[in-house]
């Protein structure tokens, strides 16, 4: 007979502290899974993610791909009869997962972009040309136009340790 896993309340407490403060309210009705647009297309079951967080099954929940199939659409959050703030729990778990090195390269690239340029999308010559044609300022009046603003952004990343997190991939 397979051994039953022991709950780990210490991990559950960490989830609560990281922002998943309503995790213990869940009674596993499955309204979330039934409402989930991503779960319609995949084997992702948001109810199970919440259950694993609730029981403190860190090794099941943090490495799981499921954690990253949530589009944060908030449909489950809206419909939950217990008021469980499910997206906040997912976010708390993701923050913990990336610090264990579970960071997809595609996401690391996005985060690297904001560290280096202050934006997620690049400014190409063709974008400038179209902006000019539309009567807009060629370079948007954002960090792209202000060197000191980009410096501030880089310092925020340093102060928060975000640049190091992204560079190391959490490992």
């Amino acid at each position, binding site marked *: 007979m397979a051994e039953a896993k022991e709950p780990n309340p210490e991990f559950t407490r960490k989830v609560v502290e*990281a922002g998943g403060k309503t995790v213990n309210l869940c009674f596993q009705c499955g309204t979330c899974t039934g409402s989930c*647009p*991503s779960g*319609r*297309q*995949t084997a992702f079951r948001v109810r199970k993610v919440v259950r694993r967080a609730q029981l403190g099954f860190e090794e099941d929940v943090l490495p799981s791909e499921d954690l*990253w*199939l*949530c*589009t*944060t*659409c*908030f*449909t489950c*959050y*809206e419909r939950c009869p217990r008021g469980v703030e499910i*997206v906040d729990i997912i*976010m708390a778990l*993701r*923050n913990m997962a*990336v610090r264990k090195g579970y960071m*997809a390269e*595609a*996401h690391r*690239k*996005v*985060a690297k972009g*904001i560290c280096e340029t*202050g*934006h*997620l*999308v690049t*400014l*190409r010559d063709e*974008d400038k040309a179209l*902006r000019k*044609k*539309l*009567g*807009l300022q060629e370079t*948007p*009046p*954002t*960090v792209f*136009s*202000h060197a*000191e*603003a980009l410096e*501030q*952004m880089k*310092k*925020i*990343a*340093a*102060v*928060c*340790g*975000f640049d190091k*997190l*992204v560079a190391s991939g959490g490992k």
Partner: protein
Amino acid sequence: MAKYAFFLGCIMPLRYPGIESSTREVMKSLGVELVDMQGASCCPAPGVMRSFDQTYWMTVAARNLAIAEKMGMDVLTICNGCFDTLFEVAHKLNHDPELRKKINKNLRDAAGMEYGGTVNVRHFVELLYRDVGLEAIRAKVKGGKNLKAAVHYGCHFLKPSNIKKIDDAERPHVFDDIVEAAGMTSLVYKDKGMCCGAGGGVRARTPDVALKMTKENLVNMTAAGAEVIVDCCPFCHLQYDVGEVQLKEFKIPVLHLSQLLGLAFGLEKDKLGLEVHQVKVNL
């Protein structure tokens, strides 16, 4: 004339600048003045940045809010993602002095800035409905075609509704009402209100999964006879516009509400920037 700090974000100014020029023109004609936020950055995007580090996410958002605060204006955005980040962070920081103190320490150390907790964040659809009003919109419509429109609300315009308090998250009407005021017919379709698939970092990490959600929406819109998809978010806009080309079987043009209003108000078509759309717009 009401004045707002206009938050540009990333996808609109860089990939669909026609949404920006349309927004500027449409708002001007409705008596809303938009003032640029010099040195603003990415909101930052709730999908990846909030998933990685909520303290960094809030600190960068607080910097953007502090820029608007210094201008003495509330923020206006035309993007659900930017709205989600800026509204939610403003909500947290405006109501929680302890958290504001913590985030302000980062902001001071890094940028010599501080956020005082006084800025409200507005989504342009909600502003059009509540402040400008349907009558003022109707008065600007120059005629043109009555198109069957599949309105896509996206997720973060209305939700989480406990803090956004704009409309019923299950059966909303404000966006449909504006589209109808612009002379279009807003369609009822299956699972209207479902996510486009792009959010939460899903488009970047598992684009095939995102595209399956997009396809389900497109099938439902097609079944209802949609002649145009109308969105209020450049990320949903990108997901549909690029997604249709990837899926090959759909050809429904995708317009941001600003562009639809631009058409209805009779703006010059070359101000709408439709030539960069992947799905040809011939309306």
